[in-house]
């Protein structure tokens, strides 16, 4: 083997020649940039990378990545990625979905992808609205939201993507916003995780739901509304890093450091491997609580495709490689002279 170093690709090497057709100012642009940067950082190759999506604004994503790509049908991307990974576990597979695609029409499939622990990176762009169909409420829209299809306010109670992912036995659950400094780091960790990685990205739809996540992205307010999670570190947040999360009984509460004798040691320390804690964190909502960003949960668990291929190996060990004539002649055969 000649040890010529392989050419390293830069973020721009993952861009296609297609015109990006998202609306100017859409949060998807920032996510695309972040993903391209991550691909370069992790040393991905174009030929071994596959982006798969369903239908919706977010699902245009594969057209803009110069890798293999599949823009499939509404809600069904999990089926396609599962087939691809079973057929070729060596591929780096990313799945891009949205709150409508992944939680409404495709909610069932997402759940099964996560519990099976297929080794893919599932990115759910949550803008709390149907963008491509021009502005109807989505499964993550807030109750009472007035849209074209809900002039008197939506009656649907919203679903929480992170709680759903944890309940569906996802082995990696994280969140970031489209403008977040930690987005690249979260995506990098998702890519490194062996198993189904679920990342919710708060994504601004500046046409139909502008400002939905201002509380979590606005320069002036962000620090007071977002809790950045760090494994093994106390849960501290706030512009002045003076607020924290404490557990009273089973209930989390917001405290101010120094007030009433509260010190760092009284706060919760983040443990990414604690599923109960992850479920609690997933349930923290603005404005009563800061919303957690970063990795909520991770666990090491065998992937679906690794186990499947292990069974194939065992079968060959036990029975020898398949032989068609043996298959044809199994059972009771008889000769007609």
């Amino acid at each position, binding site marked *: 083997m000649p040890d010529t170093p392989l050419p390293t690709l830069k973020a721009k090497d993952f861009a296609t020649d297609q015109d990006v057709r998202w609306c100017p100012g859409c949060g998807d642009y920032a996510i695309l940039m972040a993903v391209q940067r991550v691909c370069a950082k992790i040393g991905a190759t174009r030929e071994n990378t596959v982006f798969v999506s369903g239908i919706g604004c977010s699902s245009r994503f594969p057209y803009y990545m110069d890798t293999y790509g599949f823009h499939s049908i509404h809600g069904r991307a999990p089926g396609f990625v599962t*087939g691809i990974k079973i057929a070729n576990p060596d591929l780096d597979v990313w799945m891009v979905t949205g709150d409508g695609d992944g939680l409404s029409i495709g909610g069932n499939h997402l759940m099964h992808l996560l519990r099976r622990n297929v080794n893919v990176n599932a990115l759910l762009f949550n803008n709390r609205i149907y963008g491509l169909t021009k502005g109807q409420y989505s499964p993550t829209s807030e109750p009472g939201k007035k849209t074209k299809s809900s002039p008197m306010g939506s009656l649907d109670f919203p679903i929480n993507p992170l709680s759903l992912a944890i309940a569906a036995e996802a082995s990696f659950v994280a969140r970031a916003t489209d403008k977040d400094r930690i987005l690249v780091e979260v995506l990098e960790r998702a890519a490194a995780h062996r198993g189904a990685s679920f990342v919710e990205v708060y994504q601004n739809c500046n046409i139909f739901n502008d400002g939905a996540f201002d509380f979590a992205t606005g320069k002036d307010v962000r620090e007071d509304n977002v809790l950045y999670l760090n494994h093994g570190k106390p849960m501290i947040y706030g512009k002045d890093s003076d607020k924290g999360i404490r557990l009273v009984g089973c209930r989390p509460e917001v405290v101010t450091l120094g007030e009433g004798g509260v010190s760092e040691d009284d706060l919760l320390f983040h443990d990414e491997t604690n599923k109960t804690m992850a479920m609690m964190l997933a349930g923290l909502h603005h404005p009563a609580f800061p919303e957690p960003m970063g990795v909520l949960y991770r666990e090491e668990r065998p992937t679906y495709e690794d186990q499947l291929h292990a069974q194939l190996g065992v079968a060959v060990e036990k029975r020898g490689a398949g032989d068609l004539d043996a298959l044809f002649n199994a059972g009771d055969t008889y000769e007609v002279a």
Partner: protein
Amino acid sequence: MPADDHATTRPADTLTSAVVRFAGDSGDGMQLAGTQFTDTSAILGNDVATLPDYPAEIRAPAGTVAGVSGFQINFAAQQIFTPGDQVNALVAMNPAAFKAHIDDVEPGGTVIVNDTEFSKTNLKKAGYPTPDGSKEPYNPLDDEAYNLKYKILRVPITKLNQEALKDSGMSPKDVNRCKNMYALGLVYWLYDRPLDTTIRHLTEVFAEKKGRPEVADANIAALKAGYFMGETAELFPVRYRVAPAPIQPGKYRKVTGNEALAMGLVTAAELAKKKLHYCTYPITPASDILHYLAPQKHFGVRTFQAEDEIAAVCAAIGVGFAGQLGVTGTSGPGLALKGEAIGLAVMTELPLVIIDVQRGGPSTGLPTKTEQSDLWQALLGRNGDCPTVVIAPQSPADCFRGAIEACRIALTRMVPVLLLTDGYIANGSEPWRVPKASELEPIEVRHTTANRDRDGAGDASHFLPYTRDANLTRPWAVPGNPGTEHRLGGLEKQNNTGSVSYDPANHQLMTRIRAEKVARVVDLVPDLDVHGDPDGGDLLVLGWGGPFGSIRTAVDQARAEGRSVSAAHLRYLNPMPKNLGDVLKRFDRVLIPELNNGQLRLLIRGRYLCDARGLNKIQGKPFLIEEIAQAIDLMLSGDWGDAEALYPQAGGVDVNAQALGV
């Protein structure tokens, strides 16, 4: 061995064929008894054809008509194509089985009943009424009318079986589960069959695989007891012999359609040097394909039981995208769910094989009963102009060939192929001539290995996924190969580049290309073969799928009577054989028997301007030969009137009278 002892005191009648049906409660082991009788007869050299008939409920209330499970075998000293019309010998293990099946027995036929089970309770469970002023329910076995019409033999099978196994050390429940073998032994004696095949089977299953030799011994003891009972009790005035059939020499085994289809898929993958990925969701009557394939992991077969029908087909398409053989299997309701994804496979021009084991519809319909009513769905049931290749095997063994053809076309022409079987051929069985793997034609699959970094200028759009060869097949470029990175999707594709295109002229062009691509598969479709008079005649009976055997037999009978009748059978529904139009023109009349309300008939009329008439049976059951024979009579006598469709006698339907009372 008792079977070698032909020194019986009673005479033996020689028959050319016989039809036996085992019927009992769904927990009575009738399917096993029937399968064993079939295996034994096949090994004896008879031609065989079978028809299992079981309820949709796994265990409907014991003793009720809803819970009756049946298995019919036609075995013959000549070539046969169907499980037979009328039953020559019925085994009825309880009153419900008697009630459900007695009308199918030929007048004068033998009916062996398990007399022990004809109790007051069981007669009531079967729905026999208690006459006014009586404490005892009506018992058909005491009815003079039945006794005049049939040879009814009352054998207390339950009791005799208990007696035979009283020293077996088995629990009463386990003893009772052997009574199917007692009944089978009795029927083996009646038809002069050897016991060795079944003894070997019982030993293998219970003693060797399950490690319960005592169960094997008990079953074998019951089998022998039944046989000796026939020998010694002088119940039967005669026993019957059916000599071996003159079939093509070679090695044979009995296969069901689902089993043959599964073997065909494994074979196709090997021939193509691909790995078979069978992605599916359990559904009757297709689940057995999954059950046959799941243990074939040593062939590298990957089975994926998805969360639903849609995920299953999507995974299969993902497999095709990743460069392997993706197959999904289902029945009618599942095909409806897969429609959108099949459209995506048409648009992305990826190889995909979809199996639909048809059952009675619409909606949930008749899950365990057969029908051919998904033809329109297969051909037309998707949004947009969305053509796929559609193939329909004609018999259980033919499913092997059909599966290989479907995979060959999908893999070499980059097109989804729908394989339509039905409950009748999926669960029915017949002898299959065992092929030699080395004699099967390999499937040559080509992958594009163009490398833009090596061959091109490094331009991202260098690789053109929608260029084509003379068959209009586009290149199959697979993730992992550098230089052919491309994006597929359901949005309309620009010719050559495969980029998203909303151009009107391009959409018209691409729609025509997709249609023409499927049409060009016709060069792989054999010409339609006319059985009878290739140059034409008074009547052509045109069929597809499962009715092949009934049509062939009825046409042969009519021809033996000197009628000008021929048969032709379509295995390719899309594209249809090149010569079909010419064949149709050579006949004065065309009859199309189908187990639906006239789906092929409409297509033939529309495409070929042919005034075809239909024989349409929609009863969850296959055609009887007699029904087709009657339709042939009507067509030839000109008594077919103005009606578009003839209905089989038993199914004469008058919608006004029956639905509206007018």
